[in-house]
């Protein structure tokens, strides 16, 4: 009871203090302190990222660092420290726009080898912790041959105070899956949520069409994980998968200005890209419910982790972990996993030998990264699951069936979509679909439907089908009313009709 009163008192204090602080920030900036982003133009006249354009190699980002709220998958509102994306916001507006603008995970940084990144970091302050004067930083985790000045370790460099901007510079010369986070008071700020995905695309993507990579012919649009020189790290679609986890007691202690339980820290919300299942597969941007705390609701979890690909495609999963407490083992049920890179380097020996390995699980501690290729060519279309095999973390705190899990949807590359259904004068119906190149089509109707004999007997429709030569085929059937099946043009004949494509 006493504690509740205490918390209530703090909350009342906050509701008074926040507008006061905003007022202070707007009117009483100390001399010198100001949001100041640096975005120098690319004037060197050299194309360094391989796209043939000489003046577009500079990339400008503006991140804000402060506090905010996110909702866990069980609905619980969680106080956090985090980064927000202020890119494109005029400097004079950044404080007002970005206070309490934390996102979880931090905005994804995706850049290309050969680019130069100017990463502006504005410290917008911790609105709900006016007692804190913490600076913040950016640590590009794994940056090769880093200089301490831009490495973000507060002991070894300088870090930015509230209401000011520090510009980090990165000359990007190595591709790979990295990660980024704040390194100030690292245990606290990282547990509180200042972490995000970061990856670098290789220059090999920009190879001229028909270039031979040790016999592998590059075509425009082909993508690789690394400069492998043989196409072995090719992928069709890629998804960053960052593991993270929250200890609600730690976050509550932070919000309520209580001593932080470092020794007792124990994560209860295990997440992928800042969400627990089933939020992981929700395509929407998730808004927090900060109005519960008397604040404005904000979009705070923009990233979903629903992985989609067409059968036959290679999926690159860019795994990283920024969990502060545990190791997690992760599996993809039903799809073989091939590890092709670790620590932002390909598993290719100095002599060019592949050290790739197939596995059914990977284990990641904090600060570890692995690149996994899922080859779906022998995988049936359908929904598959990616989840931690540390089963006790398949929960959103006390709510079971959640946590560190997401779905992988493999689509049929040649869907049996009905182009037209024509009722003929003789009482028959003609169904027209796209051809399934290189495939044999067998159609049976699902159980539960009582078909007329002729529809049901279509075990080998190839015999009856008329191929039009324009990529479509038609099949005319007598004695059936397709409307009884609920079929109409645009429908995709899916598994419910037991369409078997072989």
């Amino acid at each position, binding site marked *: 009871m006493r504690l509740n009163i205490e918390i209530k008192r703090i909350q009342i204090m906050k509701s008074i203090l926040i507008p006061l602080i905003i007022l202070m920030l707007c009117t009483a900036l*100390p*001399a*010198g302190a100001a949001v*100041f982003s*640096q975005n120098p133009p690319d004037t060197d006249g050299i194309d360094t990222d391989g796209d043939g354009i000489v003046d577009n190699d500079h990339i400008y980002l503006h991140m804000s660092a402060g506090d905010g709220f996110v909702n866990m998958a069980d609905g619980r509102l969680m106080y956090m420290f985090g980064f927000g994306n202020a890119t494109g916001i005029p400097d004079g507006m950044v404080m007002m726009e970005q206070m309490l603008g934390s996102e979880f995970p931090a905005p994804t940084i995706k850049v290309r080898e050969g680019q*130069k990144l100017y990463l502006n970091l504005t410290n917008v302050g911790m609105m709900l912790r006016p007692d804190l004067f913490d600076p913040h930083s950016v*640590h590009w*985790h*794994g940056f*090769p*041959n880093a*200089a*301490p*000045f831009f*490495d973000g*370790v*507060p*002991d*070894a*460099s*300088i*870090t*930015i105070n509230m209401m*000011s*901007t*520090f*510009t980090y*510079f990165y*000359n990007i*010369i190595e591709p790979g899956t990295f990660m980024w986070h704040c390194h100030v*008071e*690292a*245990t606290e700020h*990282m547990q509180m949520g200042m972490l995000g995905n970061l990856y670098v695309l290789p220059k090999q993507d920009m190879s001229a069409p028909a270039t031979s990579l040790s016999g592998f012919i590059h075509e425009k649009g082909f993508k690789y994980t690394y400069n492998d020189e043989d196409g072995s790290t090719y992928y069709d679609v890629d998804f960053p998968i960052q593991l993270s986890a929250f200890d609600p007691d730690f976050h509550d202690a932070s919000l309520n200005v209580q*001593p*932080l*339980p*470092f*020794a007792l*820290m124990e994560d209860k919300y295990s997440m992928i890209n800042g969400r627990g299942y089933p939020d992981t597969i929700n395509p929407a941007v998730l808004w927090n419910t900060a109005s519960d705390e008397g604040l404005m609701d904000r979009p705070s979890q923009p990233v979903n982790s629903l992985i989609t690909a067409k059968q036959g495609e290679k999926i690159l999963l860019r795994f990283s972990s920024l*969990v*502060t*407490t*545990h*190791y997690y083992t992760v599996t993809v049920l039903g799809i073989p996993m091939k590890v092709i890179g*670790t*620590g*932002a*380097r390909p*598993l290719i*020996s*100095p*002599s060019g*030998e592949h*050290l790739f390995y197939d596995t059914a699980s990977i284990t990641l*501690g*904090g*600060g*570890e*990264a692995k690149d996994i290729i899922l080859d779906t060519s022998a995988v049936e279309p359908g929904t598959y699951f990616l989840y931690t095999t540390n089963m006790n973390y398949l929960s959103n705190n006390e709510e079971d069936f959640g946590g560190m899990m997401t779905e992988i949807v493999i689509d049929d590359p040649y869907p049996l979509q009905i182009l037209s259904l024509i009722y003929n004068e003789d009482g028959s119906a003609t169904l027209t679909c796209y051809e399934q190149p290189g495939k044999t089509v067998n159609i049976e109707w699902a159980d539960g439907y009582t078909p007329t004999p002729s529809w049901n007997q279509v075990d080998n429709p190839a015999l009856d089908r008329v191929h039009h030569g324009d990529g479509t085929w038609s099949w005319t059937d007598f004695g059936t009313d397709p409307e009884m099946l609920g079929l109409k043009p645009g429908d995709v004949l899916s598994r419910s009709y037991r369409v078997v494509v072989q």
Partner: protein
Amino acid sequence: MKTDIFKIMAIASTFAMMLFAPWLVADAKINGLMGTSFNLTARTGTIYTGEGNIIHVWGYTAGPKMQYPGPTLILMQGMPVTINFTNNLPVATSIVFPGMDVTATGGTTGLLTNEAAPGGVDEVTYTFTPTRPGTFIYYSGTDMDLQVEMGLVGAIIVRPMGFDHMMPETWRAYGHDDSLYDHEYLILETEMDHRIHSLVKQGKYNEARAIDYFPVYWFINGRNAPDTMLNDFHPLFPTQPYGGMVMMHPGDNVLLRIINAGRDLHPFHTHGNNFEIIARDAILLESVPGVSGADLKVSDFTTSVSPGGTEDAIFHWTGHGLGWDMYGHSPEDPPEMGEDPNDHGKPFPVIIPEQQDLTFGDMYSGSPFLGVAGDLPPGHPGLNEAAGFFYMWHSHNEKEMVNNDIFPGGLMTMLVVLPHSVPIEH
């Protein structure tokens, strides 16, 4: 009263750090016992934790005082070794040497090896010949779940044939040039649940064994940060002789001998650059043993060594490719040794904010440039007079960067890249 003493200790150690900039006094080598014959004793004693606590520990030592971890034994490949072992603990204990073919005589036959009785009444002799070079571990072979936690653990380094400490061109970890190095450092990872140690001190062994293990201290070479950055044999740590400060010059190859001597995994992350893992459990990662060199080596920025396992990794840092001159040169200045010619004279790319907008780290030199000190605000401790580049090396399960409830600390140390003008003594 006791707490006050601890506080004074903690303040004193911080103060000592401020007085002695760590890179000036730390050892750029692995200290240990060299030879073929050793007299080791298991003793009880106490260690200091990073925030000033005292923990009751059991450890191996070659001297009158317990030490944690035990002495690093530096052996030669092919040279037979004899270890005469006595026991001053209240319980029987022993030593096992994974990876070695050991003959044990004397004492009492135990489950894994011969054990020495408490009270120093008998002596066990362990003899073996290290047939292959590399990084090994030794620890208690008696009641191991309790005794290894209590501190009975140490490192073994076996030098390859042809190694000569006086001839740097022979400094290899293994028989192949892929393991050549300029400096070598030990990173021995452990953790502790101090409640177990309190119970053992009271003789409550069964209660200690039954505890739900929950470590709150994490160590490199037996010390928590920030004590890891103080030199070997520092007088503040009479029972924790080994520091963990890493030093190098640009372009050097640093051999890291990483040992997980605890029971949990620790994701050890090196700021500054990737390292290449060239060996695991003292076996070079090579496709054709003895011929191909470390052609199966793996590059990474974080490594989790298995409990009881060892890894050897080569860390290399040049500062090449930054896109600006890391020495702050003008184009007409002469280049430094090993400098990236493409970056020579390139201007610093951004404007640095004003002092009042910044928080200054204790190991920041006042400038972004190597070997160039700059302005620091009043009250800054100025720990980096040589203007080296400091990088944090630590467990990335960030909870392990804490001493009990106090941040920062734990399994953390620093690398400092020193300008060539500052010598690194071996």
